[in-house]
Each structure stands twice: as C-alpha cells, then as structure tokens.
C-alpha cells in the first residue's frame, strides 16, 4: 500500500463527518507536503511530505495537532486494533470497565476513531494545571482522558440501564440497527451524533450569505437534448458558426 493511501485510510469516517470539511482538505493537512519539485523537464517527479502522522485527542486539522506532528519529532509507533464495526457514537451512554470511575456511566462527548478512543463526559479524569507562571500558581482543571472502546467501556442498554454487548442487525425494512445481545432491544443512534462543528442538526443549519438556498438547488432545469454542452450554449446565446473545419490529425 502506498504511504499516501495508508494515511488516507486511517482518517476515520466519523472524524470526517464531524468536521464538516472537504475530504481533500483533511488529507492534505494530514499528509503535509513540505516540498514538491516543479513540473518542468529538468526535475524528476518528487515530493517531500510528512511520513507518519500520530493521531491524538486533537483533531488532525487543528493547530495543536500540527504542533504535535511538527518535523523531526519522533514518537513511537502506535498499534491500533482493527475493528469490523464501529459501535460507539457521540451521545451514547456507556459504562466504564476500568480506572477510578469503574462501573460509572457517562455520555460520550467525542469519538476519536483513528485510535479506537472515546471521551466520556466527566469520567476518567485527571487534574491539569493551566497557566502556571513565576508569580501565578496556575489554575487546576479536570480533563478527561480517552478510553479504549475495545476493553475500557461497554454500551448501556436503554431498557434496563445496564451494560450490554451489541451487534448489528437488520430491521424488516432493511434498516441497520444496533441491538443489545442481552435483551434484544434496539439501541438507537443518538441525534447528537449528527452534530458537527457547524450545526447541531442538519435541519438547524442557517444559510450563510453565499449559500444557495435549498429550493434553488433542488430545482430541475435540465432538459435533455441531442446537443453537446457547447452546441447548446451557442444556440442559447445566438452564436452561429458556418465555417467548416479543415482536416486535422490526432497523434
């Protein structure tokens, strides 16, 4: 597998979804090109770009992630267990299996799919001192540490509020749903998982100045005709072309 393709596959789908950014923008920030040879005959086609990207709790396109992955910074390789299905979404209630808050339940606030991590609101926390100075002792804040989805948490069945294993099944209408193995109840995917940095729900998005309204986008103006794009435009604009082309040779 080529390195670029390798990096590309590693950025999680949920990460792309929550960012609401074009995919190319994300991949371009992840595989940062430092230098590319000009497209001229005297140059070989070569690119110098970032070789490894360490995914952390910071989003890959953000400034802190850029800093953590600055050139000449070596970090050990991380092994991430490949998963067949991703079961955890933002807004899900989960129960912790490890750590200080073992047995407690909380809501997922962030999903970091690249590392099989989730962050649960107010659980598995540590204290962090911020703004320490010569004169100022700094203020202490609680910050949540990520939890591994494979070993550290279990989903909570909403029918009896107890931890359960889940599997994906199909409803009679073909919809794919999460089902609790213990009770057989469907665990719905929360609306909070639709939330992106730009809006809480797609329907709640407010059109900005340069956005085209949805009704204009949906309007069908295409009428199929036996014309190419150029022929159609020439007809519409009243451009007449009577000249005949001389023979040309393609090679």
């Amino acid at each position: 597998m080529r390195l670029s393709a390798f990096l590309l596959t590693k950025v999680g789908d949920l990460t792309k979804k929550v960012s609401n950014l074009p995919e190319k923008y994300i991949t371009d920030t992840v595989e940062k090109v430092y230098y590319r040879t000009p497209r001229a005959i005297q140059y070989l086609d070569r690119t110098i770009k970032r070789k490894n990207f360490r995914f952390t709790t910071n989003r890959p396109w953000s400034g802190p992630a850029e800093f953590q992955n600055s050139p000449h910074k070596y970090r050990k390789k991380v092994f991430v267990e490949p998963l067949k299905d991703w079961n955890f979404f933002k807004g899900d209630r989960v129960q912790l299996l490890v750590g200080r808050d073992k047995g407690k339940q909380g809501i997922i606030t962030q999903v970091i799919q690249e590392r099989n991590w989730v962050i649960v609101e107010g659980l598995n926390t540590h204290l962090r001192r911020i703004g320490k100075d010569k004169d100022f002792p700094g203020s202490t804040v609680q910050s949540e540490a990520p939890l591994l989805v494979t070993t550290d948490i279990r989903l909570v069945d909403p029918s009896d509020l107890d931890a359960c294993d889940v599997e994906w099944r199909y409803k009679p209408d073909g919809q794919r749903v999460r089902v609790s193995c213990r009770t057989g109840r469907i665990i719905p995917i929360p609306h909070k998982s639709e939330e992106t940095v730009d809006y809480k729900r797609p329907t709640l998005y407010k059109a900005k100045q340069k956005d085209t309204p949805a009704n204009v986008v949906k309007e069908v103006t295409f009428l199929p005709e036996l014309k190419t794009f150029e022929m159609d435009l020439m007809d519409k604009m009243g451009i007449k072309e009577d000249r005949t082309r001389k023979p040309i040779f393609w090679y």
Partner: protein
Amino acid sequence: MFVIVFSRGTANGAKMASLAKVVNISRAINNVSQLFTNLTISPSIKCTSVLVSQLRVPRYGCAYVHTTPRRRALMEFFDDAKNWGEFDIKVGRAWRKDELRIKSNEDLHKLWFVLLKERNMLLTMEHAAKKDLEIFPNPERKYKVEESMSNLETVVRERNKAYHLLETGEDGERPGKLVHNQLGMMYYYRMCEHTIPKFMNNKWRQKYKFGYSGNAVHKFRKLYREKLWNEKRKARNRDRNHVMHLMKRFPNLDLEAVKEQYPDVDIENLKSQKKARGHFVPQ
C-alpha cells in the same frame, strides 16, 4: 439537504443572467480609470473603492430597486470589506454531482463563472494574508470551490460523452495511449491536434520518440524493476510484521477485521510464528 456553498445568485435566473452578459466595456474602462486616478490621490485602496461605488449609486427620492449585482471593478478580486480581519468565515458545503446533473447547461455555465470568481477572490485574499503575515480564515473554502468546479466539469464531460457516444460511437474525449519513453519507462501520452500528418511533422517526430532499445536501456530497466520490486517487497513485509505485532498485543483480535484491512497477509501462516505469540494464554 440544507445549503450549498458559494453562489450568491447562483441558479437565480435574473441575477445570474447578468453574470453572463457582455461587460459594458466603456463603463468598465471608465471605472478602472477612475480607480487609478483616485489611487494616485488617496493612499488607501479601501477608501477609493467605496468612493467609486458610491458615485454610481443613483440618489432618487423613491426606493431604488437594484436587480443586478454591484460591479466593484478591481475590488471584486477582494472579499467583502466586512469580512476583513475576521477569524471565522463560515460557508456551506460544495456542490455535489447529483445536484449539478439536474441543472441546465446555461446554469452550469453561469455557475462556473461564479465559482471561478470566488476562487480568484479566495486566492487573492490568501496571498494578501500571506503577505501581511496574517492567518487566512477558513482555508477549506478554497477546497470547497475546487471540488464544486471539478464536479461541474465532470458533469459537463458526462453530457458531452453521452452525445458523442450516441452520434459517433466514440466518447469524444482527448485521446491518449500508454507508451514507453527511450528509457523504457511507461507513461500515458495525451495526443494533440495537428494540422499536418505525422510523417510530415519533423519537429514532432524529433521531440517524441517512443520505444526503447539497446543493452544499456535493458540493464537500466532491470535495475529499475528491481527497485520497484524491493519497494513492494518491503511494503509486504511491513504489513506482515504489523499484523504479527497486532496478534501479539491484542488477545481478542478480530482476525476477520484484520483480513479485511490487510488482504495480502496470510494470517493462518502467521499464527505459528514466534513473533505473533502474545504474553497471554492462547485460545
């Protein structure tokens, strides 16, 4: 569906028609000359553009209905003044192919120029920000415009292809073929239109020499192929080692998921490897 990016009056008939209209040349020249004369007098471009545009707004006693977009001459290369110095300029998403497929050729033609203008504006603003050592807000806007433009081009080509296939049986695209250069490396040669046939075109024949021969080239090709093979071999070994490490680290590893991600690795063979044995009781 919610909104689409970058088109103040995109498919909006009257507004868009104005974009495609022929520019009133005399007016444009007048504007440009005014801009430059003002430039010499006042130090700030910002002030001059406002002055010029203010001059053109007729001051009627009644309400003034304005249907065509304001032409701001060279200032159209810059963003709206109220966006200057902003940290966050939010916009919607790019146009998708399916949304463009339902639009008429005329609409697509207009949309192309709306997008082109937007791209020019963004590139100008990016350059200006770089020059002043400032942060260019929301650089993904450029990606969104470019994605829209490439989608639009794809849709236009689809339509042209359909016409040509129906009428001539060929797709009407620029032809090309895979050829070897003189070092024996394969590349895709995109053909060109010529007014004279190949046998008369000495200049072209001197420039493009396809095919290879000779001992030295064959030797080079052998070494080059070895290099390519080594890269492939290393990638294969890397994947194999990676899977062994995964098996060592994770006792409850889902082997089917591994197989999906690394289809070239023979997992059954790896199970007996010492490197794949973890520090846990094997199941």
